[in-house]
């Protein structure tokens, strides 16, 4: 087929990419693609022409991946980066092939652009569906009108049943509850979290976790500090980085794309920052915070997703401190005390105070890093305060997705997602730490 004018033009446009994040893969790749020119991360597979799978997708979720894959419009292709392809893809003879596997994250942007060119010029065939082309919910065609049931609500019109009534949490009206499952590749949820949700209007009635989010790999400095002397400055710089990345994700959820990318820009090159760089960083973070404060980024979260003392206690880390708990493993450690560390807290425990707390901790960590860097403070401690909670030799920060089941019902969808983004729901693993 001759390449049309459209396709030639299209080859020069930014490549829309949908990223499905798997296990053992920090969101680093996604963050990197965010900042890359000529690549556009999109929120739904419908807008994408490439599916990029980062990390390993567990067997339980390969079916979900296949669903997502089939939802991409033609022409489409899949790239795998940092993990083995799922069975579905191997069975369909779609992988592994050198065409689809990307060895290192650095190559990824280039490979994405090449693949898109090949797709548009017809050198590469668009991938056919993985799932069979038959109705996902077959339709028998029985009953009065062929819907397979009786009455107004009976049967399965067009193969799917209709939503059924349930009493509402807020005003008790008996209206239909929409039941469906979201995730594990829903953009607003942590990677791997899959939940079956029941909504009435846009208020959540039930939130049942089907599979917990993939544990995030802790930066290896934190693990190292358990056993051997580690520069304290490194710990704090990594804390800044992880916090900034989390904040960037919240900004993206609020539609603040520009600010999110700017935040990621700040976070990206942090591991090799210099003393002079820290001073500049402090200023940049300050101006970013001021920019966001003026535009209502913090005020937006007021009164949303308030945790009670017990929940905050369970989560620990910055979530606890945002709730007013003076708990921080750093306060019991001598080197930190020597640096004049005091625990900073917020008082309310809603999304607003968590956002403020994250920024406060970023500022604090930069100051600590600068001071510790000058004095070359080293640290080993059996309890390390990581950006997502407390780490000891025996215990890594735990998964808290179970808590969502009691926390989210009664919340409006947007509020629920804002709350989710502000909590470190995923547990952490010590293995596979990345540097």
């Amino acid at each position: 087929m001759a390449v049309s004018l459209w396709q030639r033009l299209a080859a020069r446009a930014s490549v829309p990419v949908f990223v499905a994040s798997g296990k053992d893969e920090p969101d680093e790749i996604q963050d990197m693609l965010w900042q890359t020119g000529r690549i556009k991360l999109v929120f739904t597979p419908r807008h994408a022409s490439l599916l990029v799978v980062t990390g390993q997708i567990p067997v339980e979720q390969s079916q979900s991946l296949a669903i997502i894959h089939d939802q991409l419009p033609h022409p489409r292709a899949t790239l795998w980066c940092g993990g083995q392809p799922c069975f579905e893809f191997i069975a369909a003879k779609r992988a592994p092939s050198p065409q689809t596997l990307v060895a290192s994250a650095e190559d990824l942007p280039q490979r994405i652009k090449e693949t898109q060119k090949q797709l548009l010029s017809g050198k590469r065939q668009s991938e056919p569906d993985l799932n069979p082309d038959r109705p996902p919910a077959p339709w028998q065609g029985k009953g009065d009108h062929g819907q397979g049931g009786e009455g107004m609500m009976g049967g399965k019109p067009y193969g799917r049943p209709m939503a059924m009534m349930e009493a509402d949490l807020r005003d008790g009206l008996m209206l239909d509850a929409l039941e469906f499952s979201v995730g594990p590749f829903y953009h607003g949820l942590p990677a791997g979290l899959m939940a079956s949700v029941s909504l009435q209007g846009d208020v959540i009635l039930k939130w049942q976790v089907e599979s917990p989010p993939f544990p995030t790999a802790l930066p290896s400095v934190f693990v190292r500090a358990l056993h051997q002397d580690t520069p304290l400055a490194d710990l704090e710089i990594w804390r800044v980085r992880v916090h900034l990345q989390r904040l960037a994700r919240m900004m993206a959820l609020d539609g603040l794309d520009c600010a999110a990318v700017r935040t990621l820009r700040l976070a990206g090159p942090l591991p090799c920052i210099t003393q002079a760089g820290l001073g500049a960083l402090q200023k940049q973070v300050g101006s970013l915070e001021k920019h966001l404060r003026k535009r209502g980024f913090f005020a937006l979260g007021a009164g949303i997703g308030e945790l009670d003392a017990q929940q905050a206690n369970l989560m620990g880390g910055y979530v606890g401190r945002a709730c007013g708990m003076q708990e921080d493993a750093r306060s019991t450690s001598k080197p930190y005390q020597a640096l004049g560390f005091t625990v900073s807290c917020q008082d309310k425990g809603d999304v607003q105070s968590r956002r403020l707390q994250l920024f406060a901790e970023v500022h604090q960590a930069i100051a600590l890093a600068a001071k510790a860097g000058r004095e070359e403070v080293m640290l080993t401690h059996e309890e390390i305060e990581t950006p997502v909670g407390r780490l000891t030799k025996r215990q890594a920060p735990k998964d808290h997705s179970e808590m969502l089941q009691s926390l989210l019902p009664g919340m409006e969808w947007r509020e629920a997602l804002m709350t989710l983004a502000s909590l470190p729901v995923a547990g952490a693993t010590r293995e596979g730490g990345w540097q």
Partner: protein
Amino acid sequence: MDLANLLLIPLIAAVLILALEKCLRRNHSSYPQARPYSGGGDLSSHAWCRFHVRYYPMALLLIAFEMEMMFMYPWAVVYVAEGIKALMEMGMFLTILALGIVYAWREGVFRWQ
């Protein structure tokens, strides 16, 4: 002529877009493609349902309010000519309306039910 333009412009615009979409789309969607997106999850029912509209009291209030608003347009046209009388009348009218709004606000109508 004004009226003709008024009718023809939206008509032609709509036809233009319909034709454009018709010519450009390639839309044979297979079953797995047609499945609505929910992040890789499954859907247990149709989306169409008795949807709980969370702002229903607000919608009802609006109807009453909007009814009154239609009186305001003709009023605006004669306002300057009629002078202070018009100001007084509309002042009264708006006060009555504002009372309704204040009451509704106190009853918490402008929140998600």
